[in-house]
Each structure stands twice: as structure tokens, then as C-alpha cells.
């Protein structure tokens, strides 16, 4: 259906706002304004649609109710969700978007069929692409949510022949699309089968993925939803859907690539490697008891107060889980009051997503100029007196640098082991996501383990530093 000139121009204006908004999101100073600009674009595009397609009062009331409900659900979740569980809710928001794209394509197909079924092959192609990718994104995002929220399917879920099954299903879906497009009138049931296949593919694609790789998968599914939205727009002849969807599809793909680069994990290895890697590599905690130096809060405080002028904090996932960012900021202020130089080393995937830890620390009022990326700080560890590692493990595991056969070989790590003193606040010696031992724990001359919950441990150290000072 062709849009009126007025609506087309307003849609174009909305699309320009999206582009401008994303552009502003590239810099920390203007990012918030960029988000608001994009939101205004969304509002404009939404409102003008009602002028383009007049409808009866009942339909308008129904839409108003449903939009109200959806906004309330999305809004309440977004306001209430703790920043530590933010990744899984981004996945959830992404999933429903993918589901919506698939439903739109399915409805459009159904309408075309009812109207005589003389639709062009190109339109059908976009409809089926949207159903396949939208459905996949919907199911995959739900699995990502379930895994990250730790409801079920923890770790990497694999079964024999998984790759074969996935490949088979994908070929089946493509074959179905080709059959449907080339072969005259399309039975509705085949479209239903395609939808079911896409959901199954989404589930199977995400279940083998371990927690550490999940942000990259969420980013990929985000790009998928964008592409599905663009394809729905092609089917509907709606320019604003095409432009916004394509922008997200393309930028999401680049973002996924940047993230996997920051992790040193090629996308193919993440998506298809888990199945092969499962069961290989040395398991941690193989019954062998190795000695460690462990201490209490006062021992750590003594090291920091008397043997260190420069300290680098390395916050990890455990800090995020324990909501200990505030306790870490308090320790920073206490040590700074004693004239010590404090920096934060942020691994690209500290927390659960790139940038997630920066968000948490900013929430605790740690100045942005004290947070350093891996490349910027890695040379400074060797000249630093003490490193305080809180709830991190794999990201400071020197095995990644030294052992080419390690499952995390090649992953960029923080060179915390090069500092003079290492303090590790951690609940136990248990391994991280990668499931391997960390030799840094067992460096009895250099490393002191403080076995504690991140928050209690840091509060204890802060109190002891104050008492000693």
C-alpha cells in the first residue's frame, strides 16, 4: 500500500531522528541526548500512523488499551530492574520485538492470502525472512533470558549431533522458503511450520552458549530483530520500518563484531565452538589441594595502608552480583583520603557486557577518568604496588597468555599478576565461566586471598583501613 506524501515525509523525519540519535550515542557526553532524540523519532512515527490509516473508534480504543498495557509492563520492568540484571532484560525486550516482527509478517501474509494470493515473489521472500529471523530472535532471546536470570539451562547445554541437527533444521527452513516462494499458492500450514522451525532454531542456537559469551549473542539477536523489522517493513511498504530496522540490523552487526573482537572470541567460535569444546580442557578442582595464602580484612588493609602507594582495582562479575560497587567506591575514597593513587581496570567483559561495569561504577559515583580500558592500563600493572581483584577470575588468569592449549587462550586478560601485591576478594577458589583453574590464586608469595562475599569483604577492608589510619 502506498503511503501519502505527508506521512512519507514525517516517516523520513523520524528516520533522520534515529540516525542523528545513534550518532549522538557515540560519545559519552551526548549519549543521553541521543537516546532521547531517538525516542522522539519513535513517538512521531507512531502518532502519524494513525492519521494515515483512519479506523473506527473501537479499534482505536483497543490499540490504546494494548499500547498502555505494553508501555506499563515495559516501563515498570525498565524502572525496577537492578542494573546487575540489565543484560537479560535487554534480551527480553529484544525478544518481544523479534516476536512482533514475525507476527506482523505472518498477519500480512494471511491478509494477502485472503485477498486472493496474487502477491509478488519478492514480497513473499521478505515475509518469510521476517518470520524466520523474527521467530529465531524471539525464541533465542527468551533462552538467553532464562539462562542469565538463572532460571534453568545453566552453563552450556549440548547433545550429540547438535551441529548436524542445527544445520539440518536450517536447510529445511530454507528449502521450505524456496518451495513456498516458487510453487504457486501457498498453504497457510507451511507458513506455520516455518514459524515453528524458526522458534526451534532460536532455542537450539542459544542453549549451548555459556554465560561469558552471552552478551555477544544478545547483540547478534538484536541485529537479527532489526533485520526482521526491516523485512516486515518491506512487506508492508512502510519506509520508517525499513530504515530503522536496517539501521539496527547493520549497526548491531558491527557492534557484535566489535564486542567479539574485544573478547578475542571470533563469532564462529562462539556460535559453533561450544559443542566441540565441551568436555575438553583441564577441569578445575581436580581434587588436588594446593596451598594458598589467605588473610582477613585487617591483613588486606595493612597491605594497602603500609605497602602500597598505587592501587589498581579490578572489579569483576562477582562484584556486580554482590552489588558491591558502592563498597568499592567507599574503599577508593578512604584510600584516596590517605593520599593513595587509585585506578580502576575494566576488562571489556567485566560484569556481563562491554561497558556494563562502567555503568555500575558510575552508579557508585566513581569518576569516569579513573576507569581505564584494558589497552590503556595493561602496561601499568608492572609499576603498581597492589592490585585488588574483586569477584573476577578468568579475566586475570595468566594461563590465557601463557598456555596455548588453554580454553581461554588468546582471550585478552588484565596483567594483574605483574603487580607487586595481589589481593583477591572472592567467595571461594571455584573456577569462573571457563571452568579452569587460575594459577594466580596459588602464588603464595604474591597473592592474598580474602574469602568473602564481595560487599562484606570490601566493607571490612574499608573499616580496617580507617581503624589503622
Amino acid at each position, binding site marked *: 500500500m502506498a503511503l501519502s506524501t505527508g506521512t512519507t515525509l514525517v516517516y523520513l523525519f523520524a528516520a533522520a531522528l534515529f540516525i542523528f540519535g*545513534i550518532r549522538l550515542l557515540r560519545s*559519552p557526553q551526548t*549519549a*543521553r541526548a*541521543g*537516546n532521547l532524540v*531517538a*525516542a522522539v523519532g*519513535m513517538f512521531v512515527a*507512531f502518532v502519524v*500512523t494513525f492519521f494515515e490509516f483512519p*479506523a473506527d473508534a473501537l*479499534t482505536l480504543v483497543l490499540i490504546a488499551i494494548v*499500547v498502555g498495557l*505494553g*508501555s506499563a509492563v*515495559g*516501563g515498570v520492568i*525498565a524502572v525496577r*530492574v537492578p*542494573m546487575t540484571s*540489565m543484560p537479560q532484560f*535487554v534480551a527480553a*525486550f529484544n525478544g*518481544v*520485538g523479534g*516476536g512482533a516482527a514475525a*507476527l*506482523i509478517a505472518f*498477519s500480512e501474509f*494471511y*491478509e494477502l492470502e485472503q485477498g486472493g494470493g496474487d502477491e*509478488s*515473489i*519478492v514480497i513473499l521472500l521478505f515475509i518469510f525472512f521476517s518470520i524466520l529471523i523474527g521467530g529465531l530472535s524471539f525464541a533465542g532471546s527468551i533462552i538467553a533470558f532464562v539462562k542469565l536470570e538463572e532460571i534453568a539451562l545453566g552453563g552450556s547445554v549440548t547433545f550429540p549431533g547438535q551441529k548436524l541437527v542445527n544445520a539440518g533444521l536450517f536447510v529445511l527452513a530454507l528449502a521450505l522458503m524456496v518451495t513456498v516462494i516458487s510453487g504457486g499458492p501457498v498453504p497457510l500450514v507451511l507458513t506455520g511450520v516455518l514459524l515453528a522451525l524458526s522458534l526451534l532454531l532460536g532455542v537450539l542456537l542459544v542453549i549451548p552458549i555459556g554465560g561469558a559469551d552471552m552478551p555477544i549473542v544478545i547483540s547478534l539477536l*538484536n541485529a537479527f530483530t*532489526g533485520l526482521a*523489522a526491516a523485512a*516486515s517493513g*518491506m512487506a508492508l511498504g*512502510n519506509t520508517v520500518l*525499513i*530504515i*530503522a530496522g*536496517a*539501521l*539496527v*540490523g*547493520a549497526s*548491531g552487526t558491527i*557492534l557484535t563484531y*566489535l564486542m567479539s573482537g*574485544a573478547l578475542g572470541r571470533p563469532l564462529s567460535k562462539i556460535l559453533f565452538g561450544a559443542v566441540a569444546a565441551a568436555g575438553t580442557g583441564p577441569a578445575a578442582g581436580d581434587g588436588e589441594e594446593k596451598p594458598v595464602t589467605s588473610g582477613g580484612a585487617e591483613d588486606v588493609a595493612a597491605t594497602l595502608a603500609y605497602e602500597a602507594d598505587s592501587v589498581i582495582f579490578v572489579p569483576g562479575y562477582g562484584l556486580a552480583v554482590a552489588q558491591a560497587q558502592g563498597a568499592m567506591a567507599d574503599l577508593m575514597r578512604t584510600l584516596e583520603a590517605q593520599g593513595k593513587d587509585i585506578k580502576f581496570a575494566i576488562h571489556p567483559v567485566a560484569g556481563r557486557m*562491554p561497558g556494563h561495569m562502567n*555503568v555500575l561504577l558510575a*552508579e557508585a*559515583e*566513581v*569518576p*569516569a577518568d579513573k576507569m581505564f580500558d584494558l589497552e590503556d592500563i595493561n602496561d601499568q600493572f608492572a609499576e603498581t604496588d597492589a592490585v585488588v581483584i574483586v569477584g573476577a577470575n578468568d579475566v586475570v588468569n595468566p594461563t590465557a597468555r601463557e598456555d596455548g592449549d588453554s580454553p581461554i587462550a588468546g582471550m585478552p586478560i588484565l596483567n594483574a599478576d605483574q603487580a607487586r601485591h595481589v589481593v583477591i576478594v572472592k567467595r571461594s577458589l571455584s573456577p569462573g565461566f571457563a571452568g579452569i583453574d587460575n594459577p594466580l590464586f596459588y602464588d603464595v608469595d604474591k597473592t592474598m586471598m580474602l574469602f568473602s562475599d564481595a560487599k562484606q569483604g570490601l566493607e571490612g577492608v574499608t573499616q580496617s583501613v580507617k581503624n589503622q589510619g
Partner: protein
Amino acid sequence: MAAEIVPQVIVLVLAIALGFELISRVPALLHTPLMSATNAIHGIVVVGAVVIVLTAEDTLTQVLGLVAVFFGAVNVVGGFIVTNRMLEMFRGGSRRRRG
């Protein structure tokens, strides 16, 4: 039939090219907010869903369309608010100091 869709294909290809250009060289700090913001932007499907409902000719498509409107609204509103919350913290961290 196919000729009608050509302008749309042009728009699609240009928008994809622009999307690739827009995101290169973003600091890692902003990766998560950027993902979250683009996540909200693909909530534009809510507009497509509204079009389906407004032009629906039978009950089935109207119901499916309304479900899609619900999903899309969750995506848009949740997405923009959660992104705003993340970015608000960056600003708060540099300007507000605990007295």
C-alpha cells in the same frame, strides 16, 4: 509488481550502508548503552503492528496485530527507559559528588 518495490530496495540498501558507517569506532564504554538504544529503535515494529491492526480485514489478523502491538510497546518503552537509566549514571558519576 516487482518494479514497485525497487524504491524500497534502494532505501533498504542505503540504510544498511549507513548503519555500518554509524557505529565504527565507538568506545567500549558505550557498547552496552548503544546495544540497548538500538534495541529500543527496532521497537519501530510497533508502528508496523499498528498498521496491521488499523487495516485488518478479519478478526485473526486483528488479534495477532494487537499481540504484536503489545510486544512492540514493551520493546520501545522498556528499551528507551532502560537505556536512559544506564546513561543517566554516566552523567551522575561526573557531576554529582557525595558531600
